[in-house]
């Protein structure tokens, strides 16, 4: 179908270098089309020149240094979000397992990756709101009904700063892991990536949390929900 002149000018304004066959044909279809196309081409040429910038000479070298100086192995992470205790030993009550944590996590990211590898594939189960509330109450917390109603798994877990809570939420886009940390300071909204998942860190009124999901899920969409759903029992931090 051929374009009228108005359609053609709008196309020129949106995608002047389109290779669409109909658009290319229209460029040559009549003198006014050719003139408008030539005008657009001149403007695009100026736009190209206007956006040209000189790349810093040291840019590429600086980027290549990353792969040579930044380790990826969890035990040797160079980039630290915060300094934590060197080693400690914790137990979880609900699962009854002993997790030897003499690992010396150097960062929140390292802790989350380690924890997720150990616990990431917990099978989802039925858990009542009463059970969820009881777990939160054990840490002087309360959870919003909207959160308690979608908890599929909940248990206490070790964190760098004391007993925390490990949950799996059954969200509309699939299961998402939330780890509550009672005393760990995080960079709010920081994203961390490991083992093919992504996590967003959330500052809470009392403590912090990490929301962990597969790459394709938007864990950041749950940020506000989690932040508003976990609060101290006395209503203050």
């Amino acid at each position, binding site marked *: 179908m051929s374009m009228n002149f108005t359609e053609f*000018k*709008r*196309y*020129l*304004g*949106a*995608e002047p270098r*389109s290779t669409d066959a109909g658009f290319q044909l229209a460029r040559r279809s009549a003198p006014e089309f050719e003139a*408008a196309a030539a*005008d657009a081409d*001149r*403007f*695009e040429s*100026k*736009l*190209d*020149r*206007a*956006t*040209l*910038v*000189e*790349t*810093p000479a040291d*840019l*590429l070298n*600086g*980027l*290549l240094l*990353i*792969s*040579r100086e*930044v380790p*990826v192995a969890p035990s040797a992470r160079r*980039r630290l979000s915060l300094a934590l205790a060197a080693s400690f030993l914790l137990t979880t009550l609900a699962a009854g397992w002993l997790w030897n944590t003499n690992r010396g996590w150097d960062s929140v990211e390292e802790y989350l990756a380690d924890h997720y590898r150990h616990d990431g594939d917990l099978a989802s189960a039925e858990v009542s709101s009463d059970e969820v509330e009881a777990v939160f109450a054990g840490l002087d917390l309360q959870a919003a009904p909207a959160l308690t109603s979608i908890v599929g798994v909940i248990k206490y877990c070790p964190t760098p700063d004391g007993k925390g809570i490990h949950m799996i939420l059954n969200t509309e886009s699939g299961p998402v892991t939330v780890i509550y940390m009672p005393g760990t300071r995080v960079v709010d*909204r*920081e*994203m961390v*990536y*490991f*083992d*093919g998942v*992504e996590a967003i860190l959330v500052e809470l009124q009392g403590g912090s949390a990490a929301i962990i999901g597969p*790459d394709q899920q938007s864990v950041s969409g749950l940020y506000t929900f989690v932040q508003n759903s976990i609060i101290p029992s006395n209503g203050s931090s």
Partner: protein
Amino acid sequence: MHTDTGRQAKFDQLAGAYGTDLYRYALWICGNDALAKDLVQETFLRAWKALDNLNDPKAAKSWLITILRREFARTFERKVPKFTDVDKVVVVEEREPEPDDRMEIQLLRQGILKLAPRYREPLLMQVVLGYSCEEISAALGIGKSAVMTQLFRAREQLKLSLQKDGITGNVHELY
């Protein structure tokens, strides 16, 4: 699982292929070359750590841009100075432009920085990164029709700014 050598080679290839484009895009988003360098460095640092997540080499550029945009929104957006001295943006010219062209190009640069983000971002994706409207649509999470409207309005605003400044060397008919 990649070997260390393979991982490094994969990353180095990405840096070589896309570092310049990312810097150019970051510069126009930040309007400040120091911030842009930091943003690109941070982007590639995160890419290095999450490199195992990149399974399709053809998706590398969009993957990197996604990381960059997230980093900009998370950390760098509030660092952008309110008024940007566009003269500090170093420009490469293959040949010395005519005086009228030089003024138009300068005004276009100022105009780009003044565009609202919803117009500037898709325009820069198209002009600087060479994205198609479909790719811009996927990157920004908006429909292709909306992308085309924003691109059209971005160019319209830039041309209007040239007309307001009395540049009439080339007639730019408003659509």
